[in-house]
């Protein structure tokens, strides 16, 4: 997939910087609650289960399963025009949380719900690498 400079490059915030720093180091990081053990994503100040502030960052395994997906035929914006057709999916990490991603490294028609995938990273800028998933 091309990495056109017009693509919506994320800007890390105070809350999400550890996540994006992890991606740059080829680590997929999520949060774990030290009080109740709950794993969560997106990053937040408090635990979504017990609302504790004892939030820690952990390195996820990078393994996940495809929950659902679509093949995009008409790009969302001109920046994605060279990429069509491309797969956007929701994947469930082995650690529990769900995230949106692209499935890369296989033909779009090979993607299926329930498929095992693993994380890979695509550099978009000096600071930002985008986590994507490929067949495991």
């Amino acid at each position: 997939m091309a990495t056109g400079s017009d693509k919506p490059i994320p800007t890390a915030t105070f809350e999400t910087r550890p996540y994006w720093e992890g991606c740059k180091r080829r680590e997929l990081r999520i949060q774990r609650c030290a009080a109740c053990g709950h794993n969560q994503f997106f990053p937040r100040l408090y635990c979504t289960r017990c609302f504790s502030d004892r939030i820690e960052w952990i390195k996820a395994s990078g393994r996940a399963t495809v929950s659902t997906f679509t093949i995009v035929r008409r790009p969302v914006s001109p920046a994605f025009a060279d990429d069509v057709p491309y797969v956007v999916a929701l994947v469930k990490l082995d650690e529990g949380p769900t995230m949106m991603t692209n499935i890369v490294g296989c033909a779009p028609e090979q993607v299926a719900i329930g498929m095992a995938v693993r994380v890979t990273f695509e550099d978009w800028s000096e600071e930002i690498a985008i986590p994507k998933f490929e067949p495991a």
Partner: protein
Amino acid sequence: MSLKNQVAIVGVGDTKVGVVPGMSATQLYVQAAKLALDDAGLTKNDIDGLITSNSFVEPYMYHAEMIAEYMQIFPRYCITVPTGGGTTGAALHHAASAIVTGMADTVLVTKADSQITGMSRAKAIEAMATAGHAQFERPYGLPIPGYYALLARAHEHAYGTTAEQRAAVAVACRKHASMNPAAQMRDPITIDDVLKSRMICDPLHLLDCSLVSDGGAAFILTSAERARDFPKKPVYLLGVGEGHTHEHVSQALSLTSSAAREAGERAYKMAGLGPQDIDFAELYDCFTPVVIIELEDLGFCPKGEGGRFVEGGRIELGGELPINTHGGLLSHCHPGQPGSMFAITEAVRQLRGECGQRQVRDARTALVHCQGGIMSTHCTLIFGAEQI
């Protein structure tokens, strides 16, 4: 305190829809308001409460105040609700609460936008893509139809729902639009037409997707007691309920069911009615799979059977549960946040018996379901031709 039987709609107005050249979004808001006032036999000075949603094309920091200023009305209750498809039902919920608590006597709700004339189609599609999370969704390049394609695929996988079943929703809406001179798309279509239309985001075809439109609609709500003195038959609010689960689809609790379930349960409970009591339904149909999920979550069929439910004309006029009798967002019009307004004005006209060729016979009780975001925010409304 229950809102059941407490308020009624006494006036409705729809502008022309589709491509409405030479009209700005603001003009459409105000024209819709004028038409609703005329329908109710009121003057603008009778309005003491105003609710709008911000225009996507022509936004203002204080949108409702701007519309009041434009009309030169000076309400004692004035609020702008968010720019989303689900907030139309919520606006009516707020208006009803304001009337019952004495914040206002006569509330005008008006919504419009000019998504064709006010902005290019390409710009509209790109602008709508800003719906995703800036860091965790937008980098993956998902257009709005793609968000709903994720849900369609999950429903297909879980329950065996088919492309033909989704197409039956589009066919029913178009059939009803063909009987509605006001609708944007009136040429009947077949299931085959839907399946042969261009694939947008698998598994959704072009004709599984709603329209892009200009247009606006308004309604006027007042107390049931005052409603008796109006020229047109009042339409009573019997039940209302909301449910809210998320903003971003990647945070949704479920991909195959929604807070339409909670919204519906709350509305049915207030009304003391169930799905079996509903004569027709106006269901939010931004994309065909949404209707199938809503039919299940609102209890018209068991979970997973929505696909089979829409087969065989059951949701068409003359069927067991006619839906989207004006043509819905799929075929009547979809100017963005005003979408559900036309569902409400249609339900009112049906319950008054004003719908001519597309009139639901003996229509007494209607359900309107409004949805916004990506199955994020839900409001169910139940209306009656009489208080019950």
